[in-house]
């Protein structure tokens, strides 16, 4: 369907092809899988009219503190499909699912200091605010803005929140089993290394 739909595992092939065409990411395949198998409700793709995946958002839930919150791991839209509002739609869909399915209270993300286009999208269109600056967050030494947006936080389903009772190797609804975490060497891995 065009526009925005939930990602399937098969979409991974085309999603990663987006990386060839947008920004190269250092996420391993396992990291994508880890997301889609853990929080499939939070992964959306933008599929164009001819069936091509032209953008996606990768997100997850975190429970570092008492506040259950969502985190946007990655957002990509093909260069040929920018300025069509797809990024906004992808973000809105993921945020809505965080709120409605997992009862998230707020959503966070990191953005490069130099990425003005993205920064503007997050602040002006989507209403994010700078929460903190993380010095040298990225592998190449660039700083990141730690940004947040409050959600209404109405918990509808407790589906995820009892997930952590049966975890083998501890952690909240956000941590995977030890093996997965161990191999997660993504740019954004800091947040997931909650072993």
């Amino acid at each position: 369907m065009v526009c925005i739909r939930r990602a399937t595992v098969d979409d991974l092939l085309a999603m990663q092809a987006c990386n060839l065409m947008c920004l190269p990411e250092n996420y391993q395949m396992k990291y994508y899988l880890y997301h889609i198998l853990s929080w499939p409700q939070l992964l959306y793709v933008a599929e164009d009219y001819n069936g091509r995946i032209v953008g996606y958002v990768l997100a997850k839930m975190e429970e570092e503190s008492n506040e259950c919150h969502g985190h946007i791991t990655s957002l990509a839209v093909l260069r040929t499909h920018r300025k069509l509002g797809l990024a906004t739609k992808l973000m809105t869909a993921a945020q809505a699912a965080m709120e409605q399915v997992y009862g998230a209270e707020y959503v966070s993300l990191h953005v490069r200091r130099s990425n003005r286009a993205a920064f503007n999208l997050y602040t002006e269109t989507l209403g994010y605010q700078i929460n903190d600056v993380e010095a040298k967050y990225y592998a190449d030494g660039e700083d990141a803005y730690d940004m947040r947006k409050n959600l209404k936080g109405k918990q509808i389903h407790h589906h995820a929140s009892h997930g952590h009772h049966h975890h083998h190797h501890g952690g909240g609804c956000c941590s995977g089993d030890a093996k997965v975490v161990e191999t997660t060497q993504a740019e954004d891995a800091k947040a997931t290394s909650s072993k």
Partner: protein
Amino acid sequence: MASKFGLAGGIPERRVRPIWDAIDSRQFKNALKLLTSLLSKYPKSPYALALKALIHERMGKPDEALAVCLDAKDLLYKDDSSLMDDLTLSTLQIVFQRLDHLDLATSCYAHACGRFPNNLELMMGLFNCYVREYSFVKQQQTAIKMYKLAGEERFLLWAVCSIQLQVLCDKSGEKLLLLAEGLLKKHIASHSMHEPEALMVYISLLEQQSKYNDALEVLSGNLGSLLVIEVDKLRIQGRLLARARDYSAAVDVYKKVLELSPDDWECFLQYLGCLFEDDSMWKFFDDIDQIHPTKHIECKFSHLTEEMFDSRISSASELVQKLQRDTENSNLRGPHLAEIEIEKRKFLFGKKNDRELLKSLLQYFLKFGHLACYASDVEAFLQVLPPHKKAEFVGMLVKNSDSVSASATIELGQTTTILKVQELTGNIFELPLGEIEASAVKLAKLYCQNLPLSKDLDPQESMFGEELLSLISNMLVQLFWRTRHFGYLAEAIMVLELGLTIRGHVWQYKILLLHIYSYIGALPLAFERYKALDVKNILTETVSHHILHQMLESPMWVDLSNLLQDYLKFMDDHLKESADLTFLAYRHRNYSKVIEFVLFKERLQQSNQYEAARVEASLLQLKQNADSIEEEERVLENLKSGVQFVDLSKEMGSRTLRFNEDMQTRPWWTPCPEKNYLLGSFEEFSYCPKENVNKDREENVRRAIQRKSLVPRMIYLSIQCSATALKESVETNGSGGDVKTCGELKSLLEEYTKMLGSSFSDAVGMITEISQGARTSESLGSDLVDWLNFAVFWNAWSLSSQEHWHVLNLLFERLILDRIKSMGSSDMSSCYSDVQVLVQIITEPLGWHCLVIQACTRSSLPTGKKKKKAQHSDHLPSSPMTQAVKDSIHSLCSTVQEVSTWLTNQINNPEDAQVEKFLSTLKRNEDAGGPGHVLWVLESFIASSEESEVGSRIFEALKTWSKADSTRKTVTAQQKLLREFLQICESKRELLEKLKQQMTHV
């Protein structure tokens, strides 16, 4: 982890934690030290032993690790009082898994579960083991036990998933689904259902059994409230109604979805499908075997009368108009594209509304034509038009874009779009040369004019007019193809390299360049451009087709080996480890993802490229070691003498092959790896859209894999036959080789010729006639190398026939020398395809034949090398076969020498002269057409551009541009490839000289 430690295996946590910490921080020696002291206190603790095994494994000592693991296992089994906690077992499990002994891990857990039948944690561990082994039946049994024990919904769903997997993957009877349905129903009756994913499983279960109405009932009942996102629920409802053929109800639901989400294209197509009571779309949506499944579908109208069609299409029109009105102020393309879809359906129904169809496409252009996505949006609509209508449409676009005086960016976007439509419709191939050239020049000017627009863009943003350079280069390649004037190709390279200088990340430039470089034999540079794409992870599966094929036919063995190893490592690792992730989905109760993920693993496992790469990686090793029979025998031993590949070849016939490659990113002249239009003439060309490339490929790819899989075994058998042949021929004058080996070789040869589309005797006839010159080598077509392989193994099978040796010698001579003659003194850029064939002949069939000779020679020498000199007086008497071997060596020697000479001549051609020659093709003739004009436009702009105009980043980049540097890189790359090939030839020649020496003693 803290809570889990406690007293694992009776050891306090404080003693264990430092060891885990050391392992996690990869300080294995330290870990081992700590462990040794732990073991002194707890020598009989299975947990301590498991940790020891883990450390050994991490340190790269698999044998020690396995031994320790087995000790731990024995202790577990023996010691009745031993604590069979999950931590011990899961640690053992990790090690066993890494040692490829999943079965042992499973048996440990199974044993533990037998001892403590009510321990849920252990059962979960056991379930996990079965997940890793893909044992769906056992999974199901374990999950049911857990469900009975704990009564939890999730365990029941684990069992249901396991049942679905049996049906989907093991093709178990669908009766099982009924069982699953019964279990769920019973559970719902007593406990209801609490998770949305569980509901999805229930519905899919009913759907799998075509119980659409039952599913609808569930969805509209209480359980339906589990789905919180309204549109999601409606979509499912629409689908179920459609599949239940309740079309009018489905239409209403889809209408609702469209009102909520007017840009939902798939929903619109389903809406139309239901409106026309056409179920063909389901077949289509189910077809997932493409990385980008197309969403434009064939339509079935035959069951509709004209009145029915009219009334339904008009209600669709009404809806679309409403959607357009509702979304007037947003930028949605969907409702406008829907209008075109309606015109398309009318057209396909036979309404002769081509005017309206074109008009709707034009309207869409006026609204969205400046967007980069216009061309791909309308691609499928254009395909239904006859060629002259396509041309008419292009004309309409040109006319209308001129009349619009809009902003620079809109004009730029529209111009780019028109060119893309021309490419898409094939219209561009019908234009006269002059027009294409003029158009390319115009685009180059446009590119320059618009560079200032990109002045302030971030480096990662795409530039205005970025696509123009790709379009120009496509035109130049076409001009080259039609005129065979190399200057155009050189110009295409320059345009793209210049583009990369300005914007280093543009992947299209890199891909186009890599294909042009591949075509002119500058393969090392092509490989560099490929590497710049940063292809990794799953992209190795979807993108490496751009380079793999060329590399396989090249002498760049080291790079090829890395390429294959990286790819195979990714795939093997994924296939090995993906089950760990499956369990993640179980634990997070994402049941539908469990199913998807297991099917995804199958999809990768069945990848055609994966199968092919496995065979090619082995063949590469065989090629690399073919100059030493001892080394080769070692390689063959590791390959189990090629037996597994023979099995693969046999299985291949019935195996499902999946095609995960993303072919859409390939340039027009090579829509798939096996095709390159530039190798043929323009006249023979008929433009075909890129769709369906994979359909034609399937049979060819399958047969190629089948054929290649036989080669390792045939090499092995040939060596076996040869090893005894010479001796026997001398001693008994018999036919040589032991009967069993020869028999197997013969049957493989028969298999092989069958795959070449011939019978054994016809194949022999064919190669004999070619060797005699009664037929030309063209009759072998593109399978030339395979035919030569056949000839080599056929000779090995019948070594005692001098005539066969003779045929083979002549065959090599003819095929190689003909090619060298035709290449003459032309340079690499124009004859690389011949070089490619030569590389394959020398490294494959000729290499294998040299192995046969090595085997013969070795057997003729009475004892080991040391005694060779002392004993050559008592060598075997000469026989006709010895003579045949000698003749063959002699013949091959001089043939290979010819190749070496040709290569040396090429290499000796001074680099400067080659650079000069290359650059001279780019000189423009001011008064006439021809290459060079585009580059002149671009370079004039560079010369006159100012920093204030284009911004410092672009300005600095432009300053670094040098045409001569790019040329030199190309020439150097060509030379490098030639030198690698020469090295291979020289090594073959040295080998043959050595053999010649040895044979003088026989």
